[in-house]
């Protein structure tokens, strides 16, 4: 049985102008020790689905799911107190903006030790020792001295390392990294990704990497889930996905990678992700899809079987019938 099992997860936000469906019937599995990447452009619901899992959405959000189980516990059915014992302990998350994700009023050491005290109940001396260990583990030089620093006294990369140290403090079974490198310099990005991959290897935790960077996906992930406008439209292991994408959207994303460009002009996907008011009635990608026909604009496609990467498309690519252009 997989570590994380999500079935039919939907999240909608009530807004002044009606409900907005941010996540639409997403299924997802993560095995212990696996690296899964969730990719998609802004507004595709990739962060929201994971925030829903963590229970971190604001009160305007309504979360429904047939199953939202982590390590045997159904997170939607247990009470808040029981959920808090899991969150930050076995299931941890790091965020996009390290500079604002840490509390400016407290020393970083205090913030790490807080997690150790709340979940593990360690005494003061052990907490201190463990915090130094964690800082060394995430590659913060001069660990003991840095414990007394405040977030504003450190760089973004260092703060992200602190966030990671805090997230792995209680040895989680699954770490969700929500665009952990987006706000960082390119050189620091690579360091943080290497660190996450190393930690995964050392601790054997699972890793969910939310990103919109296909380069990051290719380098780090083992399995990829592509989301578009709140729906999961394709899921494949990383190799086959890059070689033989089934969904036109995935194919278009890959075509848009500079490394793969064959022309002088980089191919782009015209249009934007549909919002609250221009949601198509058929396939959500149909207005931007170069293969779309009358069926696509009227009938929503259902997800295919695992042999086709659960693709949500009437005319999947690379099936033998039709090759990607």
């Amino acid at each position: 049985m997989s570590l994380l099992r999500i079935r039919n997860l939907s999240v909608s936000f009530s807004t002044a102008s009606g409900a907005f469906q941010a996540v639409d019937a997403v299924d997802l599995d993560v095995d212990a020790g696996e690296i899964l990447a969730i990719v998609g452009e802004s507004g595709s619901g990739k962060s929201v689905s994971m925030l829903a899992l963590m229970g971190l959405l604001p009160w305007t959000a309504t979360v429904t799911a047939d199953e939202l189980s982590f390590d045997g516990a159904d997170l939607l059915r247990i009470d808040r107190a029981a959920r808090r014992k899991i969150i930050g302990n076995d299931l941890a998350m790091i965020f996009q903006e390290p500079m604002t994700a840490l509390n400016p009023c407290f020393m970083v050491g205090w913030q790490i030790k807080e997690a150790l005290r709340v979940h593990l109940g360690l005494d003061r001396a052990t907490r201190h020792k463990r915090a130094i260990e964690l800082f060394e583990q995430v590659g913060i030089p001069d660990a003991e001295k840095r414990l007394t620093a405040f977030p504003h006294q450190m760089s973004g990369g260092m703060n992200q390392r602190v966030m990671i140290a805090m997230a792995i403090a209680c040895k989680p079974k699954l770490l969700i990294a929500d665009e952990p490198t987006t706000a960082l310099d390119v050189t620091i990005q690579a360091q943080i990704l290497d660190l996450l991959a190393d930690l995964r290897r050392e601790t054997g935790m699972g890793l969910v990497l939310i990103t919109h960077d296909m380069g990051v996906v290719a380098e780090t992930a083992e399995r990829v889930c592509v989301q578009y406008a709140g729906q999961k439209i394709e899921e494949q292991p990383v190799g086959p996905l890059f070689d033989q994408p089934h969904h036109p959207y995935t194919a278009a994303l890959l075509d848009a990678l500079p490394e793969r460009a064959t022309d002088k002009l980089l191919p782009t996907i015209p249009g934007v992700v549909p919002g609250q008011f221009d949601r198509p009635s058929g396939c959500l990608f149909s207005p931007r899809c170069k293969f779309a026909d009358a069926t696509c604009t009227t009938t929503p496609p259902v997800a295919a079987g695992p042999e086709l990467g659960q693709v949500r498309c009437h005319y999947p690519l690379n099936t033998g019938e039709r090759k990607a252009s």
Partner: protein
Amino acid sequence: MLNYVLSRLFTFIPTFVGVTLISFGFIRVLPGDPIIVMAGERGLTAERYAELEAQFGFDRPIYVQFWDYLTGVLQGDLGNSFVTKRPVWDEFFSLFPATLELSTCAMIFAVVIGLPAGVIAAVNRGKLYDRLLMSTALIGYSMPIFWWALLLIIVFSGNLQWTPVSGRIDLIYYFPDPTGFMLIDSLSSGQKGAFTSAVRHLVLPTIVLGTIPLAVIARQTRSAMLEVLGEDYIRTARAKGLAPGRINGIHALRNALIPVITVIGLSVGTLLAGAILTETIFSWPGIGKWMVDSIFRRDYPVVQGGLLLIAVAVMVVNLTVDMLYGVINPKIRKR
């Protein structure tokens, strides 16, 4: 830090001179002549009037009088009261403990109730509790102090007979007052029931004086909390699996305290202004009542000196608040 304090003290100088000038001018533009007021209904002869005028220095040009006053103040001499002939300085410090005691209690009352109320309202934003609390705060803020005081006196002192109407302590108790703070002196006197009596006298004035700061603090805490609760680090705290009490009470409140401390500091000024009314209503022998009485008597030195000392007290409080910012939020800490 020391440099910072010194540079701030330096900015006191223009404020100080300004306050001296205003208090000096303010009492003189009021109609009424202190000599006539002192003479009372008997009146006095023109010669005696001229004699007194020369004695108080009123016959000299106004700028000379101001210069005399200012140089006196800088040498620590605030002059003597026209009425009691005692130095203003001595009168102020014999009455100031009473005002300080009342203001401190009012501030504690306002903070202890206002801060949690604001936090709870922010956490339950939009719900019935929040609306109830905030509309009550608005009423408290808009309530005229004197009317509110009379209302409380009628209900609690008049109808229910729970609290005394005025004064600081029942007349049956008599003991030395080394500190001037009734709560401390009554406790150290060891007389049975003295402390309880002092507390009972303090209850209504405290509530009356603390009502407006309470409303301001509650509303400010709520809005500051609402802003902080949307911050990324609160999401981080929740992602750590912390209990809501810990998130709101430690992670959020510490960040929300900066604007709250600011209004608390500003409230001290309001409090001293409010003390004038409250002390008059409850016959509380503090500087508020002393100032009002002195204004009616046209007691120039007392009004000038009292205003100046109150202004200095407010300036010191504001300096303290500025230094507290750095303690609460290390990001603002001075290098």
